[in-house]
């Protein structure tokens, strides 16, 4: 990693179904540390695939991908990398329904060496940050869509990641709740200097970012 780039991608290719589907067809991107980037493009163009590669949820067929100083094409066990560097926010909150808000936020902290009470106080801090402290002991099923997505933000921040990857985080919300989520994310980027990479369909939302990358048929458009 050099010249302040936290993400460096060169000629990244990824196919599915034994190469019958080409999801990424030679991607080249650099993203600076602390940058807020949005990714747009039509459905099926490869946005989610690209985001998942940056988060090391999937491995490349060809090309180079380096994130926060880790060469992801070489590493075998990527769970530590994900735990330390990445915070994911999905379109659907994906919270665990039988656990409370507090417990959901604690989930990523297992195996990080934190003691039980340290986990709890860290989780409470994060729940306060997303303004849900009065609902810490509720189950996700008792929350509104916007509140659930706020819990997902708190969960993504659990291990103090250097990069937040958000895949259409407002996609399932109405505009008022969507605005609130975006406000939180923007604040996070501005105050905490977190690198934020966000996939969206909405051009107005994409405009909030410092830079917009457009993906089409598995390639970056210039």
């Amino acid at each position, binding site marked *: 990693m050099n010249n302040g780039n936290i993400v460096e991608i060169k000629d990244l290719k990824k196919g599915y179904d034994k190469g019958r589907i080409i999801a990424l067809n030679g991607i080249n991107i650099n993203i600076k540390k602390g940058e807020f980037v949005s990714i747009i493009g039509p459905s099926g163009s490869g946005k989610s695939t690209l985001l998942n590669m940056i988060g090391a949820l*999937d491995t490349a067929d060809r090309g180079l991908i380096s994130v926060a100083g880790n060469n992801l094409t070489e590493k075998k066990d990527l769970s530590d990398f994900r*735990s330390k560097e990445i915070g994911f926010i999905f379109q659907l909150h994906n919270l665990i329904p039988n656990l409370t808000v507090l417990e959901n936020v604690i989930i990523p902290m297992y195996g990080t060496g934190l003691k039980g009470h340290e986990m709890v106080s860290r989780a409470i801090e994060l729940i306060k940050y997303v303004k849900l402290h009065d609902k810490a002991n509720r189950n996700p099923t008792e929350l509104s869509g916007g509140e659930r997505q706020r819990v997902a933000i708190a969960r993504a921040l659990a291990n103090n990641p250097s990069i937040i990857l958000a895949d259409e985080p407002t996609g399932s919300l109405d505009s008022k709740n969507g605005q609130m989520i975006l406000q939180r994310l923007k604040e996070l980027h501005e105050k905490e200097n977190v690198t934020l990479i966000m996939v969206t369909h909405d051009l107005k939302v994409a405009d909030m970012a410092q830079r917009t990358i457009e993906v089409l048929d598995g390639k970056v458009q210039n």
Partner: protein
Amino acid sequence: MSFIKLMAKNPFRNKARLTLAVVGIAIGIATIVALGMVTEGLKVSIEEQLKAGGADFVVMKNTSSESSSYTIKDNRVDEISKINGVKQAAGIYTSSRVVDGNQLGLAGISVKDLNMLGAKMIQGNAYSDDKNELILGKLAAEKMKKKVGDTLTLNNDKYTITGIFETGNKELDATGVLPLKMLQAMDENNGKVHFIYVKINNNADLKAVSQAVEKAYPGELTTISSIEDFQKANDSLNMVETASMAISLLAIIIGGIGIINTMIMSVFERTREIGVLKAVGWKSRRILGMILGESVVLTLLSGFVGILLGVVGIEAIIMFSDMAMVLTFTPALALKALGIAVIVGIIGGIYPAIRASRLPPTEALRYE
């Protein structure tokens, strides 16, 4: 929240499935516990009977010998009583009859040897060897509603009850004891006994005397002074144990298959969730541990339910069927049941756990 609490919480998400799985495995565990109580009880009862009276050891037919008969010629009784160190030898013949619809165990012993049974007369007196008389165990008398002076019909002959006795052993107390000659005649087995109870002199050595008896009748007779000796000489207890082990194994296999099924369904339903756990940085090992842990929580719970079910079940069966059977529940049996439950949990959980831990995260997250 600790990781253990997380594992303990998950099986309760689907209550209907949890109940089904727990009932399935609990029945298996209950079978193991019930059979264990029966075999343990059998051992305890045999041991009690061995130790009941004044007998120091019991002589039995060596069943591995040529003849398959269990009976001993009763002239052996006199011969054994003359062996050095032997104080008293008593021949015992055992049988059973259905009396007024009740199965009644019978023991024939000469009145002068009654001391060997360890029976205490609580009502009336002992019988006379040459009369149609008998004494009843306390439990047998209660069950048949008989008292001293009443009569019993055995093989069309009337027998007068001269006394009621008690030994403290449930099985012995449910039997009737009568003159040896009478019982032998009833079975047309004159001159034959099943056991010879032997009492030794105060200064004699138990081992030396019992070995002297075995040496006098090589291959024909064997002596028993402990449950271990009994098991060596008599296949019946071993057979009961083997049968109960086979049934237990079957219960475990059925329970194990049930658990595999339950856990595979649970993993399948939570595919997306497992993808999220991987996305937040959980190692495959932790996911494996969680599913395996959930499986063990499930079977351990089934273990406790099964123990309760087994104890209550077998006690009820014995009570309602009026069987004179000693049941023994030991902590070792409870531990064995829980141990088996844990093993079933691990064996049944391992495949679903491996499957969960190997789910590719992106595919898991795409799962609808």
